[in-house]
């Protein structure tokens, strides 16, 4: 970082503060965006009320396929939420600098999706009024209880990892944002925790962040491993796999990086942050993306080729529906658009630019949801005993409108959380960016927008 002279330092800081806080004040297309999110959520709520009245019979779930779109959605949400750990913790601890403008975006995604993951589980309950029974009667032997614990823990840590780096930004917000409602000021005041920017406060803050960054790694691995164990701890064909934990975790990273790329693109365009989320950042994240996809591809090869080569009796029915049967279209679609094609395309430098990466990210994330449906459903359609003397509709499963609407509401909910956070707080840590650009510590500590404006007046 180049040392800036006093004048430049102040000027740079003021620019950063203005760039990052102005989207909070005014923001193009905010209203239609919120409106469409609320519409999606409204439709989902209507569907959910119907489901509450009729019970899970309102969905296409049945006695055999009792886990469908909701559970696939749950894995998808947990998977996406895992990105917080990868970006801000793993890369942060290694000391990678280019993650500074991205880390908070990743943390917002983590928070939004982790919160919704918990809700999706409730949507899948036939008797949500008994949700608290999980705590009252849950058995510590059950992976479901582990999952519950770990989802709550991960959400708590993600929340802290979001809030902690926010603290030094609060004085900037207090000083610059005046035209917003009173409660918003109060939130800033509260979250400032009397921040004055002393060395001692930085020391405590950075130490806390470091401890949490380390802690979140095993917790994040646990959350997705336990999610995979909901499946792998049963002896069912297609789930009975020893690599399910890492298979899920790597799949989650692919999903999460895709989500981050899309979010980066949207913030770059809509929040006018081209100077902060540069081509360089997209290029770096795209490389990370390829690496993650290669690892996930490796796990896919193991997960399908090992049993596929043996074609054990009983497993063959399941594998063949994926490779060449009923689900083959979907299966190969997810493998091609979710892994092979993106890996190939991103080998070219031209493709590692903002627009192409965002589009590729979109395809990958859609494939990610479908892939999780493929992990959940076909296994349930192939129970160990033949399906006999049951209604025709029990033989197969496709989610119905109610299920899609409720899943849509969950995705809408996650996006709403992210939107609200982005509307309340800067999407990048002002203090860290300023520090990276060589702004003097004293200037960060004693920032005063009026002073700059009066300076400008004198000049």
């Amino acid at each position, binding site marked *: 970082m180049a040392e800036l002279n006093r004048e430049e330092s102040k000027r740079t800081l003021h620019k950063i503060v203005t760039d990052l806080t102005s989207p909070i004040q005014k923001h193009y297309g905010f209203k239609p965006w919120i409106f469409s999110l609320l519409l999606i959520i409204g439709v989902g709520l209507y569907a959910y009320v119907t489901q509450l009245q009729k019970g899970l019979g309102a969905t296409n779930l049945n006695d055999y396929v009792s886990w469908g779109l909701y559970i696939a959605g749950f894995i998808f949400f947990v998977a996406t939420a895992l990105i917080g750990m990868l970006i801000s913790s793993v890369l942060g601890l290694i000391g990678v600098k280019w993650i500074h403008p991205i880390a908070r975006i990743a943390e917002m995604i983590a928070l939004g999706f982790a919160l919704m993951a918990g809700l999706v589980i409730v949507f899948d309950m036939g008797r949500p009024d008994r949700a608290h029974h999980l705590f009252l009667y849950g058995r510590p*032997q059950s992976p479901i209880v582990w999952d519950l614990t770990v989802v709550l823990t991960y959400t*708590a840590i993600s929340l802290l990892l979001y809030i902690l780096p926010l603290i030094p930004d609060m004085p900037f917000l207090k000083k610059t944002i005046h035209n917003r409602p009173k409660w918003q000021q109060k939130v800033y005041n509260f979250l400032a925790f*009397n921040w004055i920017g002393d060395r001692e406060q930085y020391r405590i803050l950075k130490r806390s962040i470091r401890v949490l960054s380390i802690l979140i790694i095993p917790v994040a691995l646990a959350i997705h491993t336990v999610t995979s164990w909901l499946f792998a701890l049963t002896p069912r064909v297609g789930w009975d796999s020893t690599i399910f934990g890492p298979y899920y975790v790597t799949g989650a990273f692919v999903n999460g990086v895709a989500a981050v790329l899309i979010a980066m693109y949207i913030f770059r365009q809509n929040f006018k942050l081209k100077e902060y989320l540069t081509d360089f950042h997209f290029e770096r994240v795209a490389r990370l993306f390829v690496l993650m996809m290669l690892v996930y591809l490796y796990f896919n090869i193991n997960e399908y080729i090992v049993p596929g080569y043996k074609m054990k009796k009983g497993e063959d029915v399941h594998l063949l529906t994926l490779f060449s049967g009923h689900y083959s279209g979907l299966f190969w679609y997810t493998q091609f658009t979710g892994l092979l094609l993106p890996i190939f395309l991103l080998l070219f430098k031209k493709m590692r630019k903002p627009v192409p990466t965002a589009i590729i990210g979109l395809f990958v994330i859609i494939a990610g949801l479908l892939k999780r449906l493929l992990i959940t459903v076909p296994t349930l359609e192939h129970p160990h005993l033949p399906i006999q003397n049951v209604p025709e509709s029990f033989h197969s499963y496709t989610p119905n409108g109610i299920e899609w609407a409720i899943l849509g509401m969950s995705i809408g909910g996650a996006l709403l959380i992210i939107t609200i956070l982005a509307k309340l707080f800067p999407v990048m840590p002002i203090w860290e960016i300023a520090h990276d650009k060589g702004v003097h510590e004293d200037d960060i500590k004693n920032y005063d927008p009026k002073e700059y404006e009066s300076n400008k007046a004198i000049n």
Partner: protein
Amino acid sequence: MNIRHKIAISITASLFFVSQLAHAQWNIPEDSKTLKAPKPVSAESVIAGKALYNTNCASCHGQPGENNAIALSPKPTDLGSSEFQARSTEGSVYFQVSEGMGTMPSFKTSLKDDECWQLAQYIRSFSAEGAVDLSSQSKDLDLRLDLTSKEHKIIAVAYDKGASVEGVKVAFFIKRYFGNLPIGVSKTNANGFAQAQFPTDIPGADTLGTTEVIVKFAEEDLYGKKIITEKVAWGKPFKFINPLDDNHLWASRANTPTWLLLSYLGVVGGVWLTILWVVGQILKIRTYGKWH
């Protein structure tokens, strides 16, 4: 083996193969039908036949006249039915029992010749001409038990109006969950004593090893249906262990395996303590800012 037997064997053998293709018919030679048992029918022979029937035949045919044969195809005939009796003679039944056909086994290798005749006479006793009056032969005896608690011996005494009776078969059983376990049959001696040894490997019903001994006359038709049961603590003590009562993965939450509970609480507790520590750090930042 005489020539008649040889013919009969070849006939049954060929019948057996035919029966694999279609439901075969009994082919009873005319001279077999008129054949008579070497010993004329008597109460003893009918009672002996009945005992043989109950061990060898009742499992398929059920009790004669009660139409309770097991579901086989073809269905084993109710041997007490008038339809069957009308077309049978002592000789024809003897032939059918000793030769068999299809599912109906041949008994001439597993039973002695006079036993086959006893069976035939018992079965024919359900017809008018074969009927035998058993009451003349039978008399109700009394039975008494003596238990030697040291050697675990069961001693039964059969007596008639105070006088012990010799040569009466007494059957000994132990009551089990799904029926009575026979442990022996023995004849009373000159003093009217019959005895059986209680086995050493019988599990009891409880921690004391309580079991129930049952003693009755082996030939109830002759000596009456007297049954004596007695509880003895001679079995092996038995303690029922409910697999759900121990700490297992599949047990209730109160029975979580200790290692699992400790790991779970340890990990979760450690993580949450750290989270609380961080919250404490935030408060520290807050108080610091307040005083500076």
